């Protein structure tokens, strides 16, 4: 071969390698932690300047440092098991029960709608109709039906989180391709076998997408329920702090609450990675 000859020959010349100039824009080459810190600093800095210059009334927007102090106060209160901890626990219970209820109902309805022609024809239109309603507006009804305890909050949280789970499940069941369906038919699989052994596993990525959207909604539902239906949860603490114009407290409570929401989301994501182990994270090699 000519190539081999050239490579091994004594007269091989030193050749410069082709050098690629990688034109990665500076903004894309910044490491994640630096970029995140930068955004955080800019955000806090702007916040600080705005409050320091008195552009906004301190009642409307506290300084970042007041908020930080209050976060420490709330943190100590929670860790020492003072009055805020039971309130947080109530809200966490509402979120967990609400999510569990939403999963049970959402998954069942999703299978009904996604698997049966009856469900798709007769149930789906009603679900879409209810889904387009502003669900928060049902809060007073839930209070009237279920009282001021956690039941009405659980109901609203579940109500909001159910629909994305229905849609995710139904879409997941539809995602199996023609070949897989044909294959199962040639193997003589029953409808139940096809559902359990093929359609459900195939649809797991979409089902988990529905669960993630539901996990976000369930938090919003629980807090809205507490705002509108009272009780003793974390939302009530926020409402009281707001009515006392204690804005630093409102901010810090919201931040702690967001940790709960984040934890729920991460639990769902972690479960997804364990269960749907074959699903590859889409990484765009050519995206900067």
């Amino acid at each position, binding site marked *: 071969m000519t190539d081999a000859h050239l490579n091994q020959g004594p007269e091989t010349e030193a050749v410069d390698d082709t050098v690629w100039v990688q034109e990665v824009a500076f903004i894309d080459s910044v490491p994640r932690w630096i970029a995140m810190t930068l955004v955080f600093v800019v955000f806090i800095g702007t916040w600080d300047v705005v409050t320091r210059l008195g552009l906004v009334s301190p009642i409307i927007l506290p300084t970042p440092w007041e908020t930080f102090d209050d976060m420490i106060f709330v943190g100590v209160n929670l860790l020492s098991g003072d009055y805020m901890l039971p309130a947080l626990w109530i809200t966490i219970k509402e979120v967990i029960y609400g999510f569990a209820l939403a999963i049970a109902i959402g998954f069942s309805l999703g299978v009904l709608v996604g698997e049966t022609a009856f469900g798709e024809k007769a149930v789906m239109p009603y679900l879409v109709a209810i889904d387009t309603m502003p669900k928060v507006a049902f809060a007073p009804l839930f209070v009237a039906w279920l009282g001021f305890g956690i039941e009405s909050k659980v109901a609203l949280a579940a109500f909001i989180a159910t629909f994305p789970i229905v849609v995710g499940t139904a879409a997941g069941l539809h995602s199996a*391709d023609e*070949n*897989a369906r*044909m*294959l*199962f*038919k*040639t*193997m*003589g*699989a029953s409808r139940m*076998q096809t559902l359990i*052994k*093929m359609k459900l*596993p*195939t649809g797991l990525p979409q089902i988990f997408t529905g669960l993630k959207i539901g996990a976000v909604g369930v938090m919003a539902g629980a807090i809205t329920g507490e705002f509108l239906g009272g009780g003793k949860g974390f939302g009530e603490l926020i409402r009281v702090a707001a009515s006392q114009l204690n804005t630093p407290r409102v901010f810090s409570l919201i931040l702690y609450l967001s940790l709960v929401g984040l934890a729920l989301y991460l639990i769902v994501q972690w479960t997804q990675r364990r269960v749907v*182990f*074959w699903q*590859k994270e889409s990484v765009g090699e050519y995206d900067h």
Partner: protein
Amino acid sequence: MNASLASKYSGASSGAPVYELTNVAKTYARNAVVALENVNLTLRHGSFTSVIGSSGCGKSTLLKIMAGLIPPTKGRVILQNNPVTGPRRDIGMMFQQATLFPWKTAVENIVLPIEIRDGKAAAKQAIEKAHDLLDIVGLKGFENVYPNELSGGMAQRASICRMLITEPAVLLLDEPFSALDELSRDMMNMELQRICREQDATAFLVTHSIQEAVILSDEIVVMKPRPGRIAEVVHVDLPRPRTLDMMTTPRFGEIVDHIRSMLDKGEDM
């Protein structure tokens, strides 16, 4: 030349009839499309038959009817002396896509037909056989690998094993290697020939490639569209076993040319 090549039903393999299609027709009532008209076909034991034709000639419809996936509008389909009225265990099928399930390992995918029909315990017992099959197709050592880690050709090999695990009497192949690159396809075709001989299987292949049809088949069913029907059954008298070298012989070229001219004529209609 035509006369020597075009031999309707004569000179087929000597085996007993396995598949018998008589006057099979398929009409889609909704739009009054005649997908298939008056198809008569006999597959003999141990023979390899291909069906070729432009798109819309009804070859996929024919395959689905033979597989018991859809009913014919008219006519009779008999497999091993029993009418085909639904999917059957003695039919093995393979598609263009390997369609392995990513949550199952190679071996678990292969024993899936057993799991569906006979349950988990039977599937477990079939694992040893699945290992043997993987060995046959050259996938030894990949038993517990997930499909994500298999190449396209390897995945199709695994799906061959899945088709063979139930020891079907006939193999229905729907363009099984058309998604592979040409080098892999040639190799897989030779492999398929060897497997069919070893398993003494009767094979029916739908393909778009004239070369592929000629190198593999004893008989080639040339179909024409609108309405889908059999135009001619071409007997391939190349000696067995076939090798890729035969693709350069004059006889091979003659048969390919003949089929191509048949198909070109179909285009005008």
